[in-house]
């Protein structure tokens, strides 16, 4: 009797000491990631609020606290609102196109009856893995006056004289949207394929037995089943298109005449470029905060919608 009691006791104390040890190990294991998070994501989130209240050209000695005046100036700057508006035009142009074209391609490529499906999938995916800034530079030629796009349009008599698409204020935004969609459709196709492959075969069999045709099956089975993953894909696209920088910077640098100036190029211009004279890091931080809040609001709305539709989202872990 006494033997069992002491044995449980030692067992218990042994257990709590191993538990403590495991907790320690666990924290040891998550600390490196935590450090990289804290330095390069956590700290920026905190300190940006302070930076945004500074008048600051980058040198330590030049810092002066100016309160909310950067924000005031920002709200009154028509160029900022132009960039803000352009970011949303860019989003509204790219996201639906990407989603629809990619879904269409995913349905095609997913069909077991299509030969060479994996070849098509690979080809459509290639632009996704290539460097956006380099694509941007190459596209300046391809959509330029001597490039292939003009060549074909002239040959087909659609155009009378060449248009330098990315340098024409009327066409630059449209062209940037088309090129961005071209680059990212492959990624969306992979997302949709993941969704399609998650749909249970039984549902299709049941629909087949009930005599549903292809179109009915698509609208009553495929589409509703894809809805939860579709919301996640939409959010990834919205966030991705709102923070576009590399391609815009290399294709148009926000021009011509600010026609493609988005918030990220606006911020860059004030923070790191010499175009505007002395850098204004505080002002640029205010713009960054203002815009990031917009993205976060979108994310929150999506998470709420997602919860309502009972989706398995990216943020879900257990």
């Amino acid at each position, binding site marked *: 009797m006494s033997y069992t009691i002491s044995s449980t006791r030692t067992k218990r104390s042994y257990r709590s000491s191993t538990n403590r040890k495991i907790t320690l190990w666990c924290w040891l294991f998550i600390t490196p990631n935590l450090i990289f998070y804290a330095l390069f994501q956590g*700290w920026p989130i905190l300190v940006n609020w302070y930076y945004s209240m500074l008048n600051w050209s980058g040198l330590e000695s030049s810092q002066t606290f100016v309160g909310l005046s950067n924000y005031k100036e920002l709200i009154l700057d028509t160029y900022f609102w132009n960039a803000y508006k352009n970011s949303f035009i860019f989003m509204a142009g790219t996201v639906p196109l990407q989603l629809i074209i990619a879904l269409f391609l995913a349905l095609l490529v997913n069909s077991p009856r299509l*030969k060479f499906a994996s070849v098509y999938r690979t080809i459509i995916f290639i632009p996704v893995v290539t460097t956006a800034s380099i694509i941007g530079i190459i596209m300046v030629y391809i959509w330029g006056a001597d490039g292939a796009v003009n060549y074909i349009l002239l040959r087909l008599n659609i155009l009378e004289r060449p248009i330098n698409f990315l340098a024409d204020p009327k066409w630059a935004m449209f062209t940037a949207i088309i090129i961005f969609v071209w680059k990212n459709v492959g990624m969306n196709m992979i997302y949709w394929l993941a969704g399609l492959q998650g749909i249970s075969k039984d549902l299709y069999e049941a629909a087949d037995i009930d005599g549903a045709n292809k179109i009915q099956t698509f609208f009553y089975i495929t589409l509703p089943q894809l809805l939860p993953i579709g919301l996640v894909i939409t959010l990834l696209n919205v966030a991705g298109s709102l923070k576009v920088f590399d391609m815009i910077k290399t294709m148009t640098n926000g021009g011509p005449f600010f026609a493609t100036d988005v918030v990220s190029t606006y911020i860059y211009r004030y923070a790191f470029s010499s175009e505007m004279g002395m850098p204004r890091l505080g002002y640029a931080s205010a713009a960054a905060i203002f815009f990031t809040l917009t993205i976060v609001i979108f994310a929150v709305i999506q998470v709420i919608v997602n919860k309502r539709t009972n989706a398995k989202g990216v943020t879900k872990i257990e």
Partner: protein
Amino acid sequence: MNRKIGWTLIHIPLILLSFLWIYPFLWMVSASFKTDTEFFSNGLRLIPASFRLDNIKRAWNVANFEQYFMNSAIVTAAVILIVVVITATCGYALGRYSFPGKKIFIAILGASMFIPLEFSMIPIFKLIKEMGLLDSLLGLILAESGGGHVLFVLLFASFFRQIPKELEEASIIDGCNFLQTFWHVGLPLAKPIIGSVVIMQFVWTWNSFLLPLVLTLSSPENRTLAVGLYSLQGEHVVDWTGIAAGGSIALVPIIVIFILLQRYFVDGMAGAVKG
């Protein structure tokens, strides 16, 4: 029979589409073989008159692409190593154990997932500067490794959660501690996830533009390929054959690696939306 013809006909638009998708790359590679005269008279032809390597050599030696290539390779390799180590350990702890602070940790990582780099850029720039690492490859490596890596941590965590407890218990009976169990039991099993993380991080770091652009503003010798090519565009009258050659140097490795390892990449991407 009709159906069969239908399925064959569908290849026509798909082939056309595929051509549109690879045309820019074909154009770039072929332009990198052309002489300037050939480029101006025949800029659109996809098959160059001869496969001369003059432009590639010029980009490699004169335009400093040798240096840029080395920088890209060093930065990418170092970042992959760091990221795999920190996310695998983190995912292991989160996936296999529950411990005080776990929930908060996950919530913090998840909450900042949508913070764009543009937002963090100024503080990161300032931080690297204050560490005395501005204009050094080390600074670039650290900054590129920064962030919460939510996607990778979750990929590892959900993988490690599925490993049967018996394997772990066996290794503990064999006298392995936590670290040894992770190293000898967990990590070897996680090879497919490591593959996904390596290829995805490779693509992201190799293609990264804003960070290396900002962190090498005053040190051209530390530019990566993406930034080096951009500076080529800005410097003189646009030298398209040189740009095409530089672009080929930068893009061919990543396309080749992707085609070889695409399964891992696609699995990782799919994991991002499947949760």
